[in-house]
């Protein structure tokens, strides 16, 4: 596979189109418990991620709105699908794994079982300029989840 095909795996291009979670934000009627806005200053990519914990299941509900390159949009989509299977603690563990993978400079073997579609981003870690793109949504959700946990602690 060429470097370009490793970066833009079909799964990533599909997610960039599908954009799971890219829906109207929860808004005031249903107040989000956590919300975070992140910017990638080098290219102006932006994302706002909102998260709430479903009181019945304890799982996260994620919505996002953003604009950016295919890597950042696909990453937000894959992340949403994974995060909605998780409670806050589970997401944090997942985020730590993804973060580590992204900083592996192409060396790490992704744990496909744990990371699901997000494992397809392993190739991104070979492109230092794009790591930030892949991490943008994750940084936002991590922040939003931190707020949820903070509200729990209070």
């Amino acid at each position, binding site marked *: 596979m*060429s*470097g*370009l095909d490793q*970066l*833009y795996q079909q799964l990533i*291009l599909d997610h*960039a*189109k599908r954009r799971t979670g890219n829906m109207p934000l929860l808004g005031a009627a249903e107040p989000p418990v956590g919300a975070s806005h992140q910017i990638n200053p*080098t*290219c*102006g*990519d*932006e994302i706002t991620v909102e998260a709430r914990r479903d009181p019945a299941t304890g799982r996260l509900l994620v919505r996002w709105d953003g*604009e*950016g*390159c*295919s*890597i950042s949009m696909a990453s937000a989509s894959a992340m949403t699908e994974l995060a909605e299977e998780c409670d806050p603690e589970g997401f944090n563990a997942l985020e730590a794994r993804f973060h580590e993978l992204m900083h592996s400079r192409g060396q790490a073997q992704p744990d496909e079982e744990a990371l699901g579609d997000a494992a397809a981003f392993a190739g991104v870690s070979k*492109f230092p300029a*794009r790591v930030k*793109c892949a991490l943008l949504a994750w940084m936002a959700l991590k922040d939003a989840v931190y707020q949820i946990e903070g509200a729990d602690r209070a």
Partner: protein
Amino acid sequence: MLSAAQVARIRNDFPVFDREVAGTPLAYLDSGATAQKPATVIDAEQDFYAQRNAAVHRGAHTLAVEATEAFEGARAAVAAFVGADPDELCWTKNATEALNVVAYGLANASAGLGGAEAARFALGPGDTIVVTEMEHHANLVPWQQLAARTGAGLRWIPLGEDGRLDLTDLDDIVDEHAKVLAFSHVSNVLGTINPVGALVERARRVGALTVLDACQSAPHLPLDLHGLGVDFAAFSGHKMLAPTGIGALYGRAELLAALPPVLTGGSMITTVTMEGAQFMAPPQRFEAGTQPVAQAVGFGAAVDYLRHIGMAAIADREEALAQRLVEGVARIPGVRLLGPADAADRIASVAVDVQGVHAHDVGQYLDAQGVAVRVGHHCAQPLHRRYGVTASTRASAYLYTTDEECERFLAALAEVRGFFGADS
């Protein structure tokens, strides 16, 4: 105009073009960000360190004399290259610093520094600073800061749909309250060459100072600052074949003599007591501390090289490249040109928006073909916002750019939407 054979010879002077990227020869179309360096510039810097390295303007030993001569010789060469007198040219680290030296100099004058002579530079509430909507952040943020510091207002000349400044309301925007009109000679995104004459004339009528960001004109066009009649100008060496770390501030002699310095300390004073200090005359007044001497010498070598090739020939050649790029882009479906659609009054810097594909992805695809372009907002967020995008892809050419490199860019650009499925 430079022939293909001349361009080939020019390329031989640039060691970097021996490099391959992605298994193909490098097609470097990012000269708007920074230019590649000819061996004469690399050698001049190295030779300075190897043969003449010493502190300038002090010490009577042979090396100190030679170093000073090389340093001041470079100043004279760069000044002549842009149509200025040597004493009107102050070294700075880059254009950003030069623009800040003017803006903060005005702030210092507004705070009462510099005595009666500097009072002409003072701003306050009721005054305005005028910029344009196309500015690089380097010629926008310092003015926002100056406005915030002094209470002056900030206004701007808008951009039209065609990528040129919309001067319809010029007389209203640059009215009798205007104290400063700061604008770029050439847009680093759109490639537009602005009508300096009309802007200077209007500023003069209302008594506003003109500050020209010449970053994208000095490398590409014959430049005559005296002829243009601007009050201040800024440019960076690295965009015109020189090393990084060296740029210049031009100011009309009379103005530099009255402007309060921003950086103060060693090498810029005449007398210092515990209570205060007296400053040297320009340009030294604006060159506090040890200067980037080897870089200045490299800058001198860079303008010698450009002068040897001839700026008129370079500008003609780049107009042909601009035409090739603009026409080529127009033939690609789903690709929108930002900036003037004709080759007149523009340089060969061509920014595009590829529908359905983010600029980062475009740049990545091009890089995989060995084509180096710039993607992002190019330090001009308001400009991009004006055209409804957050980022664009920019190909920018220079004297060493070949027709074939432009064709490689265009061919790869034509494939991008297909690769990302944006054409389905």
